[in-house]
């Protein structure tokens, strides 16, 4: 993507955008009219050459009403459109996150990723639609990872006791019907995720003709979400800053300090807070998909990093002092996964893992308990090869969007860690071509790749254009019953 835009043209476009933004704000005055955004916008730092910004008017077009409203429905990005810059890709990622987390307005507590547009993927490959609640979340189900480690946090501000992190996987209807069609021998001319109208039409027609199903938001193309959750006390003071849902979770029995047992059948209903989300989807020119990830802003501190300020001066963001303790604003924050007195050398240490039966066992020499976690690669950039430009771009788009979101919108509390894709449109494939990774080079979500932060998404998601790329591709069962999804939200 970087190679597709002339930098001079890019700067010129930026200038045009800023000019247009200024004129439009003056003419319509919508910035000033939006409650809570004016003050925050004044503090923004839009002038860095490397910033990724969005105007209020552009942002408003993401909403289905054309206005930024608290909890407003955001439309899916049109993934058939070409993304012409890194910033476009970050915006696509943000729009998809906001869309996926938009309340559907149906009155039953649905948000889009848990509505008729998406299916929950269960452990056994079954696809389930269940509005209003997460069907089920499991320890480490979404992020198998080498070792199947379990992550527990000391969420004292959310729950009275340490909490296991749980995971769920969701795919949209385009993904589900495409997968089912492939299993049924359809789409023989498609060996990668759809990126064009022609391919999308085939999938839409297949869903309608074979399953009498109307695909909603088809322009999103194939979307795969992984979500991470922590059980909370819904009455806790901080609970309102999280997107929450009801879910079944395994009911564990503590046997020893080294083992939590699950009988395989007992579940409990719990209120779960969303702490992380991978947003992955195909777009025009990117069948390898764009891999973005979001976290609650209070999850973890980032390691120290650098970015460019409005004068394009390199600024150091110091979250840890030389001894490895939190410092500055990071020391006064109330992190969910990192204690105030914790030290970074003790962090990111896997303490336990879950077995195939769902039992949780401490690793050798360790006990069941919370792990201190921080993001070792801020915005997915390597410490030994920091890219302050990428840091600047992601940091500013986060600032812009969280500022522009209406006060009270719970989505203001989430940030994008980063996004990654390849410039040549392929994941790494056996015998070539190699994936030329763009965007965040070492992207990780503290709640998901907790113990594997060094790698890039494409370090694991490679080796095939479908199954090798998307690890759930070959685990999904076929959709066998006609869907009843005909009611748009």
């Amino acid at each position, binding site marked *: 993507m970087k190679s597709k835009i002339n930098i001079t043209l890019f700067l010129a476009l930026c200038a045009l955008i800023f000019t247009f933004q200024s004129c439009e704000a003056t003419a319509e005055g919508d910035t000033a009219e939006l409650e809570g955004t004016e003050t925050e916008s004044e503090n923004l730092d839009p002038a860095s050459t490397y910033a990724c910004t969005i105007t209020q008017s552009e942002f408003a077009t993401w909403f289905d009403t054309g206005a930024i409203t608290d909890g407003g429905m955001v439309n899916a990005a049109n993934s058939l459109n070409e993304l012409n810059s890194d910033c476009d890709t970050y915006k696509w990622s943000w729009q998809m996150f906001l869309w996926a987390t938009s309340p559907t307005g149906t009155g039953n507590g649905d948000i889009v990723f848990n509505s008729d547009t998406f299916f929950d993927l269960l452990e*056994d490959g079954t696809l389930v639609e269940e509005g209003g609640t997460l069907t089920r979340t499991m320890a*480490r189900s979404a992020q*198998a990872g*080498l*070792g*199947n480690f379990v992550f527990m946090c000391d969420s004292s501000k959310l729950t009275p006791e340490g909490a296991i992190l749980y995971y769920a996987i969701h795919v949209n209807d385009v993904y589900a019907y495409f997968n089912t069609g492939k299993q049924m021998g359809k789409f023989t001319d498609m060996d990668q995720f759809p990126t064009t109208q022609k391919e999308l039409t085939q999938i839409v027609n297949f869903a309608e003709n074979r399953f009498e199903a109307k695909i909603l938001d088809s322009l999103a193309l194939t979307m795969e979400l992984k979500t991470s959750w922590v059980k909370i006390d819904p009455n806790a003071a901080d609970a309102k800053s999280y997107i929450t849902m009801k879910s079944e979770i395994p009911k564990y029995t503590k046997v020893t300090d080294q083992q939590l047992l699950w009988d395989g059948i007992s579940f409990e209903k719990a209120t779960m807070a969303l702490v992380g989300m991978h947003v992955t989807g195909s777009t025009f020119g990117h069948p390898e998909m764009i891999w973005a990830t979001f976290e609650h802003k209070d999850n973890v501190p980032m390691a120290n990093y650098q970015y460019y300020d409005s004068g394009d001066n390199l600024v150091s963001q110091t979250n840890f*002092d030389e*001894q*490895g*303790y939190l410092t500055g604003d990071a020391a006064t924050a109330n992190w969910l996964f990192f204690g105030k*007195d914790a*030290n*970074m*050398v*003790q*962090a*990111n*240490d*896997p303490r336990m*893992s*879950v*077995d*195939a*039966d769902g039992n949780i066992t401490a*690793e*050798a*020499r360790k006990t069941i308990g919370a792990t201190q976690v921080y993001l*070792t690669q801020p915005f997915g950039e390597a410490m*030994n090869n920091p890219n302050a430009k990428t840091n600047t771009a992601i940091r500013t788009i986060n600032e812009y969007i969280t500022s522009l979101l209406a006060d009270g919108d719970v989505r203001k509390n989430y940030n994008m860690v980063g996004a990654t894709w390849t410039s*040549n449109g392929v994941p790494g494939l*056996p*015998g*070539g*071509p*190699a*994936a*030329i990774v763009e965007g965040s080079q070492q992207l990780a979500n503290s709640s998901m790749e907790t*113990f*594997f*932060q*060094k790698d890039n998404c494409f370090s694991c998601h490679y080796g095939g254009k479908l199954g090798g790329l998307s690890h759930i591709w070959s685990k999904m069962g076929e959709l066998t019953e006609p869907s009843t999804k005909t009611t748009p939200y």
Partner: protein
Amino acid sequence: MSYLDYPRIHFSGQFQADPSTINNTPNNYNPAVYPEPNDLGEVELYWAPLGTSTFQFKECVVSRVDYSPTESATTSQEDPIIGQAVISVNNGGGSKLVGGVIVDLDPTQQNVSEVWGLEVQIGDGDTMVHGQFTAISFNAIWQQGQGPTTPRSSASGSAFYQSQLTSLTIDNKKESRFLTALNNKESLSINLVVNAHNNSPDTYLFNDETMLKMSFAGVDNSILEKLDPLKCMSMNRDESGTANAPGLIPTKKFTDFIMLQFISKEEYNLSYETIYKYATQQYQGSTNCDFTWGRIYGTIGEAEADEPSYFVASRMMNQTTLGVSTSQCATTPRQSPCYFTPFKTEVVEGGTAIILNLGNSLPTNTPDIGFYKEVLGTLELVALPGGNDINNAVCLAEINYLEDGFMTENAGFFTFIYTGELDLSTTPLGIVGNGSGSKELLLAEDPQGYYLRADQFVYRMNPGNTDPELGEKNTTSIHALKFGVPVADGTEIYMNMMSTYEAKKYTLGTLGESGTLGVENVSIPQNALIINDGVPVVKTTNGVATFDLKCTDPGNPRDYVNGQVYFLNYGFNEEAIKKDFIQDANDIVSVQVYDQNPKDDSVETLQKFGRIYKIMNFLTKEENIVSINYRNLISTYLNSPISSIKHMPVTRDLSLAELTEITSFIDGLNTPPPRN
């Protein structure tokens, strides 16, 4: 009870053994052969330098249940367990697509490849049986492919894993008669015959000729110059150290990996199509299976807690000698084309059932094309009341080894009910074939019915450590039988250590080790492992002779390879027994004795593994080892129990002393400084 008893199931399909092969020679442990971690011009790559160590099943399906000698099921209507998938899983990894890992004991003992961390599950929808496979090496490896064109490698080999499934979960909601008959057993006996393993990789040639073609075809010369080191790499070398086929690189996966060590991804993408067009060599697999895959034939039956875990206390038909072969150079014994065959007899209503497991016994011409009928001819199961005198052999039954499904449905089992007068419980049995043109006794039980085997036969020992499994003391149990029942108390069993000469000769004569360079200084010093306090003979009690093993520090006799390997022979001591007794040459005990003190510091030790195991190439960089993104994972894996899939194969060559040193090193990195 065992898999030879009833009830039992058979299954067949394919297995994958994908070991990393750079550790196949002691020479590759020498840091001096790596000017840079990925400068491999002096290294023997062998056939899978980027192997993952995976051991797993695919397309394995239950084909038959035997409830008794006369009752069987072959359809799911008869028993719903028929047709169920048998899949390899592992607990630690959580993925149902992966099984265990396969690990050799040492570069000088590759004939005992163990499978660790494997779990076996029957049923891929509703799990009907799930159990942990107790780690063990294969045994009874022999050259099954015997035709003139069969590969001269382990691809022609066949062997079996004999172990148990423990920590069982059985769900019988499908009402399988087999599962009902198991009656809540706590462990199962499992026998896995493995053969036809395709170890011939796809190859890519980088020499002056192919690279000139690449250049003419448009590959930038600057890229080709960077790839110049590939011209020196090779899979194998001769004894002088000269590369056998310079520039021949195995597997596309490794070729990609090594190219990307020298050129950028952009340069790779610009040139890989042309490079592969001219580098790709014609492929010929050594078997019909895909590369790293082979055939597996399994049998699962009941097991009892007090039984040996790794062999079946049964009777055994031994490989016979069929006269001599004479050539211009030498006169050598002509061995039977068939191999040792476990069996049992059981009195049943109306006669005596004879149950043979021929799954690892009959030769093929080349791997995986059916049995070698031209050599075997008609096979007859015979009684040998007169000992190994074929003239007194009594034909009991013809063996239907050429029938469809003999292996794929029955896993090589043959069952016959004898109704004659002979007392088969004390009459030796054998197999006669006429493939040579006249009848020959191809397999024969010991005339007196004797058979013995060590239960566990692979040990890792650490001097100065008291760990019950891996410490400086252990015991090995030799089970001795006569016609399938324990020998009389007081039967003498000996155990002794192979000398340095014998050890080298033995190991280089095995299918797993033959042709390996750098096998030197084997089993020295001889006094680092003490057998039974120097008392070489032990008398049996209840058919078992137990030998104590105790080790001391071998003192780093192999420099860059940790510790030393010892091979222990054992057998019947009394002349009256051993005069006719034929023992499988595989039946020895292999012991790895590690150095008591680490030779290198923690970083150097881990870097060695980065060089040898290319899937852990990140370990070659010290910055990665100390990085918080890796060090806690390294520590976690290294401290996992040896039975865990996380533990092996990373630490195959590590001593407990090295493990402790690395753990302390990482703990030190994780100790926070005082807060200012």
